[in-house]
């Protein structure tokens, strides 16, 4: 059997790209390291995965796996559309979706995921960081997590309504606005 350039070119494209596709189908095509968060070393929660170690490149599937949070909760909490590939959604992509909040000095990003995960799992988290959460995330936390009064208070001042017709005000700002409006109506 003989081979000419054109056949070789076709074979190269065929073998290279079908090989890569096959690896993708079997889940072996990974171009970055597996995301495994470090564990908390000391104290009451020693041995638990540390939400502080969640990085922007973590996919929601990594979070679901290590922190045992259902993907549906993550999808709902962060307002991802129904057709989004939630499992492969990377935390840093939140910044793209909620980039418009930056104008108002607010942010929903990887930090929000860390906060959500920590509260969901009842793990320690430094609340002085001024991190915001989307309103559905707060609702899920109120429903599923064991929150302290301090945490509930924090969430009320740091939740952002992400529904389409909403402004980006936090719940508290909205309440204040309503009160002001009522006052002026009187």
């Amino acid at each position: 059997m003989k081979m000419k350039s054109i056949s070789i070119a076709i074979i190269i494209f065929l073998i290279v790209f079908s090989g890569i596709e096959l690896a993708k189908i079997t889940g072996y095509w990974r171009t970055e390291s597996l995301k495994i968060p470090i564990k908390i070393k000391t104290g009451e929660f020693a041995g638990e995965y540390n939400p502080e170690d969640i990085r922007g490149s973590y996919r929601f599937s990594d979070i679901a796996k290590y922190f045992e949070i259902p993907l549906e909760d993550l999808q709902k909490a962060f307002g991802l559309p129904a057709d989004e590939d939630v499992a492969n959604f990377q935390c840093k992509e939140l910044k793209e979706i909620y980039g418009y909040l930056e104008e108002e000095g607010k942010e929903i990003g990887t930090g929000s995921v860390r906060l959500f995960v920590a509260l969901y799992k009842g793990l320690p988290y430094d609340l002085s960081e001024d991190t915001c959460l989307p309103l559905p995330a707060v609702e899920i936390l109120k429903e599923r997590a064991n929150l302290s009064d301090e945490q509930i208070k924090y969430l009320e001042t740091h939740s952002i309504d992400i529904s389409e017709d909403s402004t980006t005000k936090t719940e508290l700002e909205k309440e204040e606005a309503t009160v002001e409006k009522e006052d002026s109506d009187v």
Partner: protein
Amino acid sequence: MAKSNQTVKGVKTKEKGYIRLFVQIFFFTLVGLIVINHALEESGKGISWLSSASLHAICPFGGVVSIYKFVTTGMFVKKIHESSFVLMFIMFILAVGFGPLFCGWICPLGSFQEWFGKIGKKIFKKRYNNFIPNKYDKYLRYLRYGMLALIIYKTATLGYLVFWNFDPYYTLFNFWTGEVAIGGLIVLGIIILASLFVERPWCKYLCPYGALLGIFNTFRIFKIKRNPSTCISCGACDRACPMNITVSKSRVVRNHQCISCLKCTSEYACPVAGTVQFATKGGE
């Protein structure tokens, strides 16, 4: 390449080498775009339909240097991932069938040297690629096996990409990021300069991956075969070979330096149809 368009019996219009050039440009551009996309993604502006893998993650040689660590610990050398292993296997499959197609058709560093060498060819004409006397050159060509052994040994014992800061391939695609090491720039600079005198100097003397793939030439399924009964001993194949292999003296090319570029074949340089071919054992 197709300079021997003499009127010899059996001559037909020569292929100009555009097919291989197209494949080389395709992979060069693809790798370049992936590297740019990797940088863009870090600043949140990546192109979603294009891979944004790091250059290390799409290097098949990364798979090779990781074998030891993977077998002994189940982990990869730092910065290397499963994708490198996948590409390593794909290139091995290609090499078993056709020899180092990776070198002759895909490797962007190989293509880059080849393209740069065209300037040298313009300057030195026939002397180009013939500066080093064969009696020394044939031994120097084994240097790359020393390099291969050294890199595999060092990476296995230390567990990270020991030589990345001398890697000309990494430097070639990342020199604009400011993240490259001075060692890499020096090596790349020397290669560029040497390419003006010698075709593919890095491939011939130092490339560890080329060394490894070259071993497949001894048993690959498709080989460069010359038919002595129709050969007119014009030496066109020898002159066309970028790796200075004397195809005109072999029946079958098993030289570890062959990069399966096909330049010597009757499709390109050899003026007699069907005399030098890329064929299996039975294929004349």
